[in-house]
């Protein structure tokens, strides 16, 4: 199970991340989870074989502060999440503008779940209008 999880907001994220840097935490990666109504971004940190996580829950379309100014290695994974989930990061040190791993003709934000009605239709629970 997931332990050592701290909830943060857009306003408190950067302070929480900045506090970890001098404590010797290594940034492992970011995980984005599409919860249909909103997005969860998990920041996974590591120190002395122990994991620690920050959980940011935001509405879709919210601009999230980039942590690449604190952990420069975050620039790669933030660009990945921008491509795959359509997340927008404010202050991204190097912005590929959605073309880090997707080509110009690729689907937009392909990792997002389909709308609830479409998902229900796919599972045979609801018939979609033609």
């Amino acid at each position, binding site marked *: *199970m*997931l332990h050592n999880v701290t909830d943060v907001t857009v306003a408190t994220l950067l302070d929480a991340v900045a506090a970890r840097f001098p404590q*010797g935490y*290594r*940034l*492992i*990666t970011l*995980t984005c*989870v*599409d919860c249909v109504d909103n997005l969860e971004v*998990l920041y*996974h940190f590591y120190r002395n*074989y122990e*994991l620690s*996580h920050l959980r940011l829950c935001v509405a879709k379309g919210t601009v999230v502060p980039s942590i690449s100014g604190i*952990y*420069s*290695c975050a*620039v*790669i*994974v933030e660009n990945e999440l921008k*491509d795959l989930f359509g997340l927008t990061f404010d202050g991204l040190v*190097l912005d590929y503008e959605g073309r*880090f*791993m*997707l*080509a110009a003709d690729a689907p937009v934000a*392909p*990792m997002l*779940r389909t709308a609830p009605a479409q998902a229900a239709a796919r599972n045979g629970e609801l018939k979609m209008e033609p």
Partner: protein
Amino acid sequence: MTTAATTTRRTLIPFGPQHPVLPEPLHLRLVLEDEIVVNALPAVGYIHRGIEKLAELKDFQQNVFLLERICGICSFIHSLAYCQGIEELMQLDVPPRAKYLRVVWSELNRLHSHLLWLGLLADSFGFESLFMQVWKTREKVLDLEEATAGARIMLSTCAIGGVRRDLSDEQIAQVLHGLDAIERDFESFIPAVITDTTVKHRLVGVGVITQQQAHELGAVGPVARASGIARDLRVTGYAAYGELGLNPVIETDGDCYARTLVRVRELHQSLLLIRKALKRLPATPIAVPVKGNPIGEVVSRVEQPRGEVLYYLKANGTKTLERVRVRTPTFANIPALLAMLPGNELADVPVITLAIDPCVSCTER
């Protein structure tokens, strides 16, 4: 007034996505001043497969077969990381024999991977005879994988709750005999890797990152250990590693030679771990039955040949998972690679790139 800075001519050189030293497509945009790299930007996505998305559509048992296909070299370890995560969610107690067998197959994956890499590295600087010798030995590892798991690329071997295959006494003897032959081969070519003047000329002092850089850039695996970071997830004791005992192999120079030394020493470490595991193989069942569906969130991490792999799994009590996130070691080592390149000559870029042992299949999961 014209200054030196304004008259310096910069050139943009594309490295990859197709390049003789790269088995898979990876693109680097190199900014050069004369022959010296001053900046590098990566571009990936040439073979992205959307496996994380597909894993949300398959049931959690089918995902074992899907996720082990992320990489053909460390396929068993991918399935191990996933299975361990699901087992934690479902509170399954894996039988001891299965844990020891997981160590055996993980270390065969590591032997295979490090030998494949060493051959490619030798090939990158034109040491063809070393390349041939190393890959000849790699064939012997592949033979052991086939003899114990049914195929040269191990698939469908790890399972949720244990493993699918057991080893007979004859197979154990075959593996031990094979390891002896592999160790004899090491004695024939590893001194050349370590002491040869031309090898050292291409690797010593090339692509250096300090311990501080490696930590801040999130480097993992042999890349981190070659910069003096004693971090190896096998020390946490997953599978049966906790009962076999090992210390991380570290070097401190942080250059391509140090990365080579770490992997060469890990070859011997893998031989030792397999022998220990086979010697102590407990007589228990190899799997427990799986009932119900997983629920909850978990992070599962194991040590692949290239470093730490992280699986984040979110389950909701149905047979399909809400999220499967895989952060592979090569993805984590890209920022470190970008820090290694500036200050080096263009001719060293292939060697430095290979020295992180890039696996684009993993990166483009």
